[in-house]
C-alpha cells in the first residue's frame, strides 16, 4: 500500500519536474495569445534565457570574486530572464511598431536564438555542444521539513531524494495561480483579454491597445525566461545547444489544448510533462528509441484532435 503510494508520489514529483519548463512557457504563450499577439518565439526565449543564466552566473563569479557564491545563481537567473524579455521586446517592437507578421517574426526569433546561443557558445566556451566545462551553479531547492515520518507525502512534497523540489517548480505553481488571478480578477487582465477578443472595440473603449500588447509580450518573455532558466539551472546544471528540444512548441500546443484558460493550459502542460516522463520510462524497456521519441509529439497531436472534436460537438 505504502509502496504504491510512494510510486505514485514519485511519479507525480517527476511529472512536476518535467512539466515545470512547459508550464512557464505555456503560461507565457497564454498571456500573449489572449492579448491577440501570439508569441511563437517561446522556444527561442527559453533557449536564450537558459544560455545567459549559465554564462552570467559563471562570469559574475569570475569578475566579482567578492560576491557570496549563493548569490551567483540568482544573478544568472535575473540575467536569463532579462535576456528573454529583451528578445520578446524585440518581437513586440517588430510586430507593433513595424507591422511585421508576428508568427513569422516569432519563427525568426527562434532561429536567432538557436544561432546566437551556439555562436556565443563557440566564441565564449570554445565548445559547440555544451557548457559542461564551466561548472555552473544551480538554483537552490526548497525542502519542506516535518514529513519524514510519512514517506509518501514526503516524496510528493520533497521529491525522490527528499532534498526538496527546485525553487522554480514552486514558482511555476505560483505563477499559474498568480496568472489566473491576474487575468480573471484585475482590470489589466480584463484589458488583455479584451484586446485579444476585439481590438477595435478595445480601442473604442479607450484601452491603450498597443501598451497592453507590449505588456503581454514582455510578460510572456518573463515567464518563458523563467522556464529557460529552470532548464539550465535546475533540470540540468549546464547549457546544451538546442536544449529546449521543442518544449516551446509543446507549450504552444498546451495553450490551444487548454482552451485559452490559465488552469486548462496548466493541466495541458502537466499532460505534456507526463508524456515526456513516460517516454523516459519506456526508454528503459526494449523498445526502439525512435518509437519512444515519437510519443510526446503523438500525444500532442492526439490531444489537439480531441480538443478540436470536443469544440465541434459543443
Amino acid at each position, binding site marked *: 500500500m505504502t509502496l504504491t503510494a510512494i510510486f505514485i508520489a514519485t511519479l507525480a514529483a517527476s511529472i512536476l519536474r518535467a512539466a515545470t519548463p512547459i508550464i512557464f512557457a505555456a503560461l507565457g504563450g497564454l498571456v500573449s495569445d489572449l492579448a491577440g499577439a501570439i508569441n511563437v518565439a517561446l522556444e527561442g526565449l527559453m533557449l536564450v534565457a537558459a544560455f545567459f543564466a549559465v554564462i552570467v552566473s559563471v562570469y559574475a563569479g569570475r569578475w566579482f570574486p567578492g560576491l557570496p557564491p549563493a548569490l551567483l545563481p540568482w544573478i544568472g537567473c535575473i540575467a536569463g530572464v532579462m535576456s528573454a524579455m529583451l528578445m520578446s521586446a524585440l518581437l513586440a517592437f517588430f510586430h507593433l511598431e*513595424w507591422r511585421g507578421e508576428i508568427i513569422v517574426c516569432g519563427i525568426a526569433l527562434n*532561429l536567432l536564438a538557436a544561432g546566437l546561443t551556439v555562436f556565443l557558445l563557440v566564441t565564449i566556451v570554445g565548445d559547440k555542444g555544451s557548457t559542461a566545462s564551466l561548472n555552473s551553479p544551480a538554483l537552490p531547492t526548497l525542502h519542506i521539513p516535518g514529513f519524514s515520518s510519512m514517506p509518501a507525502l514526503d516524496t510528493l512534497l520533497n521529491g525522490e531524494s527528499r532534498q526538496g523540489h527546485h525553487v522554480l517548480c514552486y514558482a511555476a505553481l505560483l505563477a499559474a495561480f498568480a496568472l489566473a488571478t491576474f487575468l480573471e480578477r484585475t482590470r489589466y487582465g480584463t484589458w488583455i483579454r479584451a484586446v485579444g477578443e476585439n481590438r477595435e472595440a478595445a480601442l473604442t473603449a479607450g484601452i491603450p491597445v498597443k501598451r497592453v500588447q507590449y505588456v503581454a509580450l514582455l510578460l510572456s518573455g518573463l515567464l518563458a525566461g523563467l522556464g529557460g532558466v529552470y532548464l539550465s539551472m535546475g533540470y540540468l546544471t549546464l547549457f546544451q545547444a538546442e536544449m529546449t528540444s521543442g518544449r516551446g512548441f509543446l507549450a*504552444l500546443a498546451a495553450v*490551444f489544448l487548454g482552451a485559452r484558460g490559465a488552469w486548462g493550459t496548466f493541466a495541458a502542460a502537466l499532460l505534456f510533462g507526463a508524456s515526456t516522463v513516460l517516454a523516459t520510462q519506456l526508454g528503459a524497456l526494449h523498445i526502439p528509441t525512435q518509437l519512444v521519441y515519437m510519443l510526446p509529439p*503523438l500525444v500532442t497531436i492526439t490531444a489537439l484532435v480531441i480538443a478540436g472534436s470536443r469544440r465541434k460537438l459543443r
Partner: protein
Amino acid sequence: MSSLFFDNANAQSGRREALRLTIAIGAALAIGFCITLAVSDEPIRAYLALLTGALPEFEWSHAQGWQVHRIVRFGSVIEDAITLSFLGLAILIPFCARQFSLGADGQMFLSALAAAAVSLWIGGPWYLVLPAALLAALTIGFLWGLIPGLLKARFGANEIVTTLMLNLIAVQIYRLIITEVLRDPHAGMIATPTLPDSALIPILVERTNVSVMLFAVPFAAFAAWLFLMRTTWGYEIRVVGEAPDFARQTGMPVARAMILSMAIGGLFAALAGLHISNALLKRLPVDLTPGIGFDGLVVALLARNDPKNVPLTACLYAYLRVGAQAMERTADVSREVVLVIQAFIILFVVAEGLFAGWYCVSPAGIWQRWRRTGKDVLEARQ
C-alpha cells in the same frame, strides 16, 4: 500581398519590393558584420570569406591557360540552391493560403526515404527506377502534407504546432526504418546501401553533384506559378490567403483550399527529398540533419509569395550558406553567424513599416498611401 486584384500596381510595387529586399538583406548583413567585428580578430577577412568564399576562382597562366579552382565549392552552392528552391516552393504555397506550415522538413525526410527504398527494391533500368522513385516520393510528400491540412480543417488544430510535431515524428520514422529495415550491414555507419547506378540522377558537372535536377527547378517554379495564377484551385488558395472573409462569404471551399495548399507544398518538398537521396547523397545516412526546412522558409519569404522569384532567392541564400562554411574554415568565426543573419533577414523582410519611411516621401508612395487611407498621410504630415 495587396496586388491580387490590381494588376497595374504590380510593376511599381514590384520595384519597391526589390528595393525593400535589398535594404533588408543589406541591413541584416551589416548586423552580421557588427557581430563578426565584436568576436573576430580579423573581421574583414572573415566577412570577405563569407561574401566571396562561395565563388569559384579563375586563374590564368601561360603554361595551362584558364584554370578554375574551387569548383566543388561552387557546385555545392548550386546543389544547395536546387534543394532550397524546392523547399522554398513547398513553404510558399501554403503561405499563399496563409497557412504557416513548417512541415517541409518531415515531408522531405519521408520522401527521400521513399525514393531510396523504391530505388533499392525495384532496381532495373533507369527509365523504370527513376519514375518509380519520383512517384513514390511525390505520393509520400503529398500524403504527409495532407495530414496537417486535414487536422486543421477538421479539428482546428493549429498548423504550426502540428507540422512541427509531424516533423519530429517523420524524423523518427526515417531513423527507425533506416536502422531496422534498410540498414546496410557492411557499411561502417548506419546508412542504407548505396543506390544502384541506374537510380542515380545524371550528373552534369564533374566532381560535383550538380545533376539534371537543375533543369527541373525552373519547371517546378513555373508549375507552381501556373497552379497559383492560372487554375481555379490556385485562385481559391490565393483568395483564402488574402481575403479569408471574402472567400467564406462567397462560398468558396475554404477548407479544401487550405488542405490542398499544404498537400501541394508536400509535392515540392518531395522533389527536394528525391534530389537529396538520388542525386546528392546516393545513400541515406541515419543522421541526416533536420532543420533545412527553415532555410526554405527564408527562401519563401524573400520570394514574397511569387514562385517565379524562388530560384533566385534560393541561389542567394545557398550562396550565403556556403560562404559561411568557407568563413568557418578560413577565419575564427563560427558558421552559426549565418543563422543570425538569416533571422534578421526574415525580421527585416516582414517588417513592412520598417522601411516605409524611405519611399513614402516619393510621389508614388504618397499616392499609394492616399489610396489606402487618406487619414494616414495627413497624420504622418502633422
